[in-house]
């Protein structure tokens, strides 16, 4: 399986994601922002960082990068896409996911380990998890405060599209939301970084549960 990782100017978790793809047992493929080509990827990760310096608004400029056109088409056709941190922000800006990520309510960057609960195993990125399972994942963001209007929020909850929920909310997110998916469930955005806990040499490989899901769950 080929897993593409987009590289925007200012992405800084791209190399970590490529490394984690190797550890999950897939073939990593670098997707340069200026090339409108997914290079035959079977799944795509939009990694964290500060694309275009987060200038204007996190993700606001990256959504116009050339690589986004084929990515949006891939997503519409049901291809599995995971946005992590800044990648989540990019996918929201691109309207592939509902809602927006506002500045943390305490107005500080938050780098920590947090406990989250997997709320649905019915996505290609959580298929290998149990519903209700708790994971400890790293967060590192300044704009991770998930926001959506009341109607959208109610729909997300009703349709079981909240993918991860914080057990200790680090940023003020509505309904403690740490990750959501689109209506078709193939596009998932999460603020925590599964790629940072995908190597037991660093003390935990719980993130592999999320990344490896796509190996089994690509057909969900």
């Amino acid at each position, binding site marked *: 399986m080929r897993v593409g990782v987009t590289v925007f100017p200012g992405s*800084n978790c791209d*190399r970590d994601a490529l490394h984690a793809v190797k550890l999950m047992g897939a073939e990593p493929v670098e997707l340069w922002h200026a090339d409108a080509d997914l290079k035959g990827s079977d799944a795509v990760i939009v990694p*964290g960082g500060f694309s275009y310096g987060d200038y204007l608004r996190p993700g606001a400029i990256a959504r116009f990068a050339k690589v986004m056109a084929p990515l949006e088409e891939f997503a519409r056709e049901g291809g599995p896409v995971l946005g992590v941190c800044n990648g989540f922000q990019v996918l929201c800006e691109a309207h592939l996911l509902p809602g927006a990520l506002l500045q943390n309510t*305490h107005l500080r*960057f938050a*780098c920590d380990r947090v406990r989250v609960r997997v709320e649905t195993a019915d996505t290609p990125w959580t298929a290998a998890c149990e519903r209700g399972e708790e994971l400890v994942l790293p967060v590192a963001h300044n704009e991770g405060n998930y926001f959506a209007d009341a109607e959208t929020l109610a729909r997300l909850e009703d349709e079981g599209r909240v993918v991860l929920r914080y057990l200790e909310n680090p940023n003020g997110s509505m309904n403690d939301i740490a990750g959501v998916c689109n209506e078709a469930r193939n596009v998932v955005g999460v603020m925590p970084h599964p*790629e940072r806990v995908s190597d037991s040499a*660093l003390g935990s490989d719980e993130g592999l549960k999320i990344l490896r899901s796509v190996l089994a769950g690509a057909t969900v």
Partner: protein
Amino acid sequence: MNIQETYSVLGLSDFEYDRILELLGRVPNFLELSLFSVMWSEHCGYKNSRPLLSRFPNEGPRVLQGPGENAGVVEVGDGWALAFKVESHNHPSAVEPYEGAATGVGGIIRDILAMGARPVALLDALRFGPLDDERNRYLFREVVRGIGGYGNAVGVPTVGGEVEFSEAYSGNPLVNAMCVGLIRMENLMRSRATGEGNLVVLLGSKTGRDGIHGATFASGELTEESESRRSNVQVGDPFAEKMLIECCLKLLEEDLLVSLQDLGAAGITSSASEMAASGGVGIDIEVEKIPRRESGMEPFEAMISESQERMLAVVEPGDEEKVLAFAQRYGIGGTVVGRVAGHGDLRVIENGEIVGSVPAEYLADAPVYEREIVRPEYLAEVQKLDLETIPEPDDYNEVLLKMLAHPNLRSRRTIFGQYDHEVGTNTVVRPGADAAVMRIKGTKRGFAMTTDGRGRHCYLDPRGGGAATVAEAYRNLSCVGAEPVAITNCLNFGNPEKREGYYQLAECIEGMSEACEDLATPVVSGNVSLYNETARGPIYPTPVVGMVGVLEDVTCHATPAFKREGDMVVVLTGTMRPTGESPLAGSEYLEIVHGRVAGVPPKPDLAAEKRASDLVRSMVRSGLIDTAHDLSGGGELVALAEMALSDGIGLEYSVPEIEFMSGHGRLLENLLGEKGAGFIIAFPEERWDEVQDALSDFAYDNIGYTGGERFELEGLIDLGMEELREAYERDLFGVPGEVLGGSEAVG
């Protein structure tokens, strides 16, 4: 303005101006005078410190590059090397804390990049005035935001550092940033320009008027007018830096660069003249080709601007198109601005006309001032300490809570939480331990790093404090299981033209050098920040040591946290030479509880430091122990509390001698004194025999067991972990005294 007024404004003395006349054999024009002004500032030219710096030992078996380059480099093994350096950004941070700190981080990253290494870790040593003052809180908050704002975006994890608060730093904070880079030994880059006719390429951002005369500004005392010099402070753009890093690493990988140099203090002038001087060549800069951010800039402004996120590269003719194409791919500027010449001058050419020309070696050779080292009078006064005035406390519970809540000892979580310390997925031991540990992907190896500074100690006893600073770093690395290899340092001192400042500088350097020799950790890079004075006087003399070490097997490391219930806890007491000095002298206890900074702290016993550290390291490396912490600020009691608080496992401490020791001041000295050469270790009880074998004849106290929800010292302290946590975990950014909902307000 007459000529004397002109050079005075530029920070040059009469003597220095005469020297310039003598060297050139003619009157310099304003541009040339500006070049001398920045290159002969203390910041660039080390004119007051150079003779003293030569005292530092800088050779060792692992040293690949000592002082004189952009950073020091040491060998790790398996073909890998580490480039590292610490640098100050004190003056800019005093007047514009966010940008001052941010550009401090950006600047040190480029130093590492110039060696060809990928920057992989940042650490920051910070000092501020007390937090009950609003201005100090503002400086602290904005400096931390600036470090995070830049480091987080540029994608280099901030894995360590330290902070202390004292009146001595009010109005003159210290912001020292250290960067560590990883490189294959064969790819090591040097900044020496070579090859007449080679092209000089400016990479990165455009040049503006920011930071004009910044180096000169940083080489004077801070006064009320300093505020008006905010335009001397540069503005950082971490996004541009990120692209500059990736582009330069790509150019190095493609083998397209002859040499590489960062643009820091004194901008192109400093980079070009240093590259030329070390290569024994000249450089022509066609100044009109430098891409400008604003119009109407004079040649001297373009030459000494300290605009950030720029690098200077030397490229062979024929390669420039490839280089410029890569610059374009990474979205940064790339312009050929000059060439290497045979004449030996830094020559500034504007539209074909030479507007200034100075031999590069003159610029690189600032005059040197050697001064008499005279013991200042204040020492006799502050070294007085009558222990009779320090009684046994009535209530140790209260003392411990008060100390843990003090900003100097409180948890640093609210700082580290604002720094991304995991990006890069190499961080094995995260901030909060004695040292940070990182792995090298694809190998079993790792490396560790720490920064340490002991300003109060150096103030009370400059020589002893200098040695103790190095010893503390050595202990910290040993705790995590790393073999200490070498140090970088940032010498933060007051005005060297004053007797007190020069004495402190000379004595600290002597003490550090002795320790570096005895502990076999040579100095491979460094930076000097003098003139840290305000109207209220100089800062504490504060040499900051950044030490790196190597782990052959990164999985064998230790951290301070108690890990299991029922572990045995043993204190290695080190040895204390019978010098009569009390370990309470200059201690945190004395300052926090009694408000006094006095006495002569025990002189570090370097042989004992080495022996104890080497012992702990060997136990960690063999996998015998995974829990170790050194005794430092707050002594044994605070160290034990820190170990318990790390993961919330309590302690039951039972030493029958406690009662015997009390009443003679001995108990206080043992629990809260700062003796040096001491460690606390913990391990499962079934390993006790093996541990005893390892300890051999080393002095230790077997003091108790981990476990439970309480922190208990029989008959002395009995506190719930929750009470300890409440004191220790208080938000450092809150307003002291302001209580909201049971905890201090978020500032």
